[in-house]
């Protein structure tokens, strides 16, 4: 066993306390330490994007902790859901704080996931041997948006009800299985107790299980394959630092900064609660989905009712589906073998990103 393992250069056997020895005998901590010492992270002008994955993980941890705390008081019943959130917001000590943390962290997490996805895309980190990591990343994005969609209904206020209605209407237009999928999610033909119960179960059980599974594989693959360096960076321009402790410490600093942003948002803009949902009331004027669905919503709004014989929404959803498919399959058509395809992938990504920004702003302002 190597003797230069500890950061201060001392031999573990000499300086270790009995507890470490006990654990080491069973878990082989020294080997883990050796492995951590070997792992390196490239440093170059685009290194900042390497922190996005870590920030996402940190926000996920916030989501898990605050989600568990919210579950203590939340009641997924049509007659009690809104009242229980109101109670959390007004009568439970620090309840507003926990809920605001949950809601703001969710939004920030989705935002950082988008940043992570596009930074990975533009650094071409999806290429061999990281195709599976990329695909799982895309799957995680879908799951995260699913969390947002299902969580949005749970407070059972007017806006959440009608935004969910719009979301499910769009889902029903998905080719082939759309109608069935919307019916399953709704638990019938209208939004009811069945919908709330299903969304709750999906939000707190199904999605977390899927997320933990995919995230586990995603992280494992990153450990196995290491962190990629963009080909545009010259080898001479790249330095390396140890993952542990150097990168981890920097990662922690970035986490602290991200947490500070979260706390400032929570304190200045605590998450509110609208009026209790009334399925028979007219939809609030100018109802819009959450910002991460806004680009899609605005795009669908612009499409006429019919394009030839095809229904407008069906056409729009098919286009969006194709874009996601091309994006998802990018590792298989931009393998790095062709410069032309590499450029095409970059331009395609830029167009998608710019379109998302423009449609989102347009949707927010319209």
């Amino acid at each position: 066993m190597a003797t230069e393992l500890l950061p201060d250069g001392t031999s573990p056997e000499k300086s270790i306390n009995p507890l470490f020895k006990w654990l080491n005998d069973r878990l082989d901590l020294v080997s883990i330490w050796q492995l951590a010492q070997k792992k390196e992270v490239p440093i170059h002008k685009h290194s900042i994007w390497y922190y996005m994955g870590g920030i996402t993980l940190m926000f996920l941890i916030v989501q898990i902790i605050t989600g568990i705390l919210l579950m203590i008081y939340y009641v997924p019943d049509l007659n009690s859901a809104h009242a229980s959130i109101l109670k959390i917001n007004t009568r439970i000590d620090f309840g507003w704080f926990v809920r605001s943390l949950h809601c703001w962290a969710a939004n920030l997490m989705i935002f950082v996931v988008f940043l992570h996805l596009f930074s990975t895309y533009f650094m071409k980190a999806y290429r061999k041997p990281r195709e599976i990591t990329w695909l799982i990343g895309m799957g995680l994005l879908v799951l995260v948006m699913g969390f947002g969609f299902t969580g949005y209904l749970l407070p059972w206020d007017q806006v959440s009800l009608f935004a969910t209605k719009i979301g499910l209407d769009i889902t029903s237009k998905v080719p082939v299985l759309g109608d069935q999928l919307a019916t399953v999610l709704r638990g019938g033909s209208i939004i009811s107790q069945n919908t709330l119960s299903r969304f709750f179960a999906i939000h707190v059980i199904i999605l977390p299980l899927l997320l933990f599974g995919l995230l586990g594989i995603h992280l494992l693959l990153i450990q196995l394959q290491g962190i990629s360096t963009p080909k545009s960076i010259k080898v001479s321009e790249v330095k390396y630092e140890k993952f542990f402790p150097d990168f981890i410490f920097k990662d922690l600093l970035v986490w602290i900064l991200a947490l500070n942003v979260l706390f400032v948002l929570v304190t200045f803009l605590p998450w509110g609660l609208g009026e209790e949902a009334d399925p028979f009331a007219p939809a609030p004027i100018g109802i819009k989905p959450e910002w991460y669905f806004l680009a899609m919503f605005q795009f669908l709004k612009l499409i006429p009712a019919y394009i030839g014989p095809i229904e407008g929404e069906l056409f729009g959803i098919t286009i969006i589906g194709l874009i996601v498919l091309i994006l998802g399959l990018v590792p298989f058509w931009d393998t790095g073998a062709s410069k032309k395809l590499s450029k095409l992938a970059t331009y395609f990504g830029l167009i998608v990103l710019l379109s998302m920004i423009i449609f989102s702003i347009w949707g927010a302002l319209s």
Partner: protein
Amino acid sequence: MNYPIWLVPFLGGSWIIGIISIIHIFISHFAVGSGFYLALTERKAYKENDEGIYDYLKKHTRFFVLVTTAGGAITGVGIWFSVSLVSPDTIAILIQNFAFAWAWEYLFFAAEIATAFAYYYTWDKVSKEIHLKLANLYLWFSVFTLVIINGILTFMLTPGKWIQTHNWLDGFLNPTYFPSLFIRILIMLAIAGIYALVTSSRIKDDNLREKMVKYSAKWLMPVFVAGPIIGFWYFTQIPHETIMTIANGIQTSGVGNFSILTRATYLSLILSGTIVVFAYVGPYLNPKGFTFGISLMFLLCGFMVTGTTEWMREMLRKPYTVYNYIYSNGVKKDEILNIDKMGFLKSGKWANACASKTDNDIQKGQIIFRYECMSCHTVDGYRSMKKLLGTRDQDSIVGFLNLLHQTEPAKNPYHGIMPPFAGSDEDIHLLSSYLYSINNSPNSSDHKISSR
């Protein structure tokens, strides 16, 4: 109400003071904290006979002199301008009571600046012993500026016996004087460390950089060891009503705006907590990886902590500017009954002069709004009246103003949060006419009287 009004659209005058003050405090605390840092670090350099530390200090001093003299002077004068324009009645009280203290403060301030320049320009030109004496001299002068200004700042929250005696020393040595003095010194040490981390992260020699980064990070430790204890002492000395306002906000922060003090307190505590973790896992545990970029982020965190903590401190004495004596709108507590009888517009010299120029109810109401409400509200920006009034009709506005008019806590739910309305029934009518017009007039909020 005896002086002209300074109109600051959208942001409001109080935020102008706030922004300038927070920047000033972050610089002035650096100035005093550096008194300790320079003196002790120079002593360390001589003791260890380390030329590297000596060279680093020379560069750090240049940065320190530039930031504190230029930045400190600009923002310091800025505070005087903005405070005099936004709260002339309050500043008049402070000057009348503490003219002598302020004279001393200026004296020490001038000596502090002169010593800072002497310290910077005499590196390598005088003996080490004399240079170290200059560092010590700077330290004492800078601490004395704090000793004095701290008395005036704490007086505003806890005027203590001054309320009865009106003796300046009773106000100066008030209940929060000592806890505030000690906690400020600790914060100043931390801020000196944060700034020093910026300069030490640029040291070229790897070993020296790691040594100085780790050394500078340790300057944050005193505030995190003793800070909570002194902070608790400070909170035991502030008015009970303020503590109750914080406690009430613990549950209700999710709804309504009256929990802003509680939220400011949370933010101050949380950001203070995160900065200690930052200092520990960053420069202390990993000085090698502490780059200039990270040091700037750390500086930003320090600025955020300072900003929120000072904001919280200011909020503690709301709705007063001098607790239990004068409200944030310049109305003195013991003058309210008289103003109720005389009418607001007839009570203030400048307000009376403005009102005499118009016969229009809405315009007269706007004058009352500017004097009584605009220290905290704007028409359509910060704490927007447009938003707060919404679709209320004039009767409900009158009803609300009648509630605000009550000086008995039991009858006024906004007691301790907003100043009571001071004025006659006629004033209530005038103000309500203006407030109603904000959302219900074709030229809403555009009644120009300032040019008259």
